[in-house]
């Protein structure tokens, strides 16, 4: 390497560095409370996190800072957010939470997005006594996990609760003579899809249903028409799909194309997303899905308006509200304790009832039994039809074609 090339390479290197340091400049404010968060901004889970998680974090921080910050014993403190992207990668996530806890020394951490990440990060939250109010985490191991991790809270229900919610809808319709006892069930052959189908088989059969069609498809299948055609060839009145976001859209699209003539059409994850309603409009009237909200309470209406105003987009009809409620719980507990005492905040959460946009929430053995399990698109809104301990469920309607 001669001197001239060395010089030009060095210059190039220095320019890059300078540009890098300029981009990363962040202002540090004094007298703040530092709150950290790690969630995906890139990778497979980013789509969901950018709907249900990040906008609520932004909204909550803006609201708290607008009113002057969190009220502590030594005065009001504004929130300073330290956020990292885990790239939907568990190794990155674990490193980032460790960094928040021991390098950035943040005062509190907002729980991660996704079942796997909440469980993978739980040992770290427990080790440093951070309360972890998990929202987007649906598991049948709540008992074992909360016993293991004393500062971990669950708010969205269990796998079994989701299946049983749907079973209750189907049983009611069957008893009223509106549908027959035949179900066409499909599932995505991936972790959560397999788990839900596994729970659903005995649950449906015990309730007197017959699974006349039971098929799965691999994650990421571009062509779902054989699945929908297969279901159409049966005489089942109910179509149930334990699906992930891409196939929730794909199956619905095929159902429209094939004019799948069923009275109950259920797809699981992402049915509650505004994008789903946006894509299919009136065609998905009376489609059932996982989740739900009661959009008619004044608290929920105020939340939805404010969410759109601040973040520029609508919240989903499921986990968004739970996520915001979890932040309200954290806020109330911190203000009640009045100082950065994480163990005291955790204890406060365990023993008190919190006023949230979803109504009063309290924890029994670190688990909240207030959540929606099944919702239905009615008149352009995804309304809750089955809940655990929440009022405002509307009556289920039968699907009547795909106009």
């Amino acid at each position: 390497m001669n001197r001239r090339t060395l010089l030009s390479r060095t210059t190039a290197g220095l320019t890059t560095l300078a540009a890098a340091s300029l981009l990363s400049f962040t202002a540090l404010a004094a007298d703040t409370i530092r709150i950290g968060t790690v969630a995906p901004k890139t990778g497979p889970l980013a789509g969901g996190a950018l709907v249900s998680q990040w906008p609520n974090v932004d909204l909550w921080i803006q609201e708290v800072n607008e009113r002057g910050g969190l009220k502590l014993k030594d005065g009001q403190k504004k929130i300073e957010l330290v956020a990292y992207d885990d790239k939907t990668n568990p190794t990155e996530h674990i490193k980032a939470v460790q960094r928040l806890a021991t390098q950035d020394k943040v005062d509190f951490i907002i729980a991660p997005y996704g079942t796997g990440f909440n469980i993978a990060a739980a040992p770290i939250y427990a080790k440093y006594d951070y309360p972890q109010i998990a929202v987007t985490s649906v598991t049948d191991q709540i008992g074992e996990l909360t016993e293991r991790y004393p500062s971990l809270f669950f708010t969205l229900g269990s796998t079994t609760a989701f299946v049983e919610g749907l079973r209750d809808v189907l049983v009611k319709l069957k008893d009223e003579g509106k549908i027959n006892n035949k179900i066409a069930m499909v599932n995505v052959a991936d972790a959560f899809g397999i788990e839900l189908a596994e729970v659903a088989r005995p649950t449906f059969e015990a309730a007197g249903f017959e699974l006349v069609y039971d098929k799965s498809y691999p994650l990421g299948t571009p062509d779902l028409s054989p699945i929908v055609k297969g279901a159409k060839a049966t005489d089942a009145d109910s179509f149930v799909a334990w699906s992930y976001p891409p196939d929730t859209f794909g199956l619905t699209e095929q159902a429209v194309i094939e004019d799948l003539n069923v009275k109950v059409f259920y797809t699981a994850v992402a049915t509650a997303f505004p994008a789903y309603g946006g894509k299919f409009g009136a065609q998905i009237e009376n489609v059932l899905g996982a989740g739900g909200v009661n959009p008619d309470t004044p608290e929920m209406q105020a939340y939805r308006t404010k969410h759109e105003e601040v973040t520029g987009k609508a919240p989903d009809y499921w986990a968004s509200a739970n996520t915001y409620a979890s932040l309200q719980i954290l806020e109330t507990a911190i203000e009640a304790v009045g100082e950065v005492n994480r163990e005291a905040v955790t204890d406060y959460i365990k023993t008190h009832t919190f006023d949230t946009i979803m109504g009063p929430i309290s924890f029994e053995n670190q688990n909240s039994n207030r959540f929606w399990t099944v919702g239905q698109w009615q008149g352009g809104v995804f309304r809750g039809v089955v809940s655990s301990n929440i009022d405002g469920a509307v009556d289920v309607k039968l699907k009547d074609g795909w106009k």
Partner: protein
Amino acid sequence: MTAKGWKDLVLIGVLVLAAAFVPLVTDGYWLSIAVTAMMYIALTTAWTLFSGPTHYISLATGAFFGVGGYLVATGMSDHDLPFWLMAAIAPVVSVVLAALIGAATLRLSGIYFVIFTLGLAEMIRGLVSWVQNNFLGSRGLYVLTDFTEAHIYWMLLAIAATVYVIGWLIDRSRLGFAMKIIGNDEGVAKHLGIDTARAKVLLFMVTGFFSTLVGAIVAPRYSYIEPNQVFSPELSFMVVIMALLGGTQKLWGPIIGVIPFILIWETITASFPNATTLYLGLCFLAIVYFLPNGVVGLVQKIIAKGRSA
């Protein structure tokens, strides 16, 4: 046996001993970085074992790693089998897998092999999901153990040290000699009467065994296994990049590559959380531009310069 070879081994022994004390010095942030680094050291050393002498760029690491994590998780949560049993079974399954894949593809020349291994992780993920969905069923893939980061770190360190010693032994065996000839000219190797396919498959099986063992040991760290995360093609690429940064001519090259890479990666993610990929790309460019032969190549160049001066 040359004195140089023994010197290398003693040096590594001292490094392993020193590395074993890391969890006693730190237990938070730096330990979690050390665990990640140790995971990649074990994976890249296992990778270099096969790809170093043969020059076959294998992108199969993600597939083997995934088999390890997945089998441990499904065994523990769906069939109530103990962790150690699954951690013992998983690598054996991978050895069989590696033998099948190797027998089918290693007779082909390099580029076909690269392309095949690229799709391998995805293929195996699909295969295990299919088996689980149709025959075994699942209640969620949980790996709940009482291992701390320190335990996982020590286990990974033991694997990395074992891989190194095995590599050192192979290097001095007939197999190692055969691999060197294959790497230089496969045609010549065949004319000399070396069963090239057998030699390559054997080494590929060793790599598969250890990559899977790493996946099995890391599974308790994730606690909950999602197939599309353990069968990650990204992991395969990271391993190749780190190995190339270190230099693949020497078995200890990867160690020199992994540590600076992990530190640079960490600095980037901590300083530019919203533009990580951009800066990572710039780093790759810089590595290829300034260090075409890896850190080992640079060191050798400097030594050579010192001698000639």
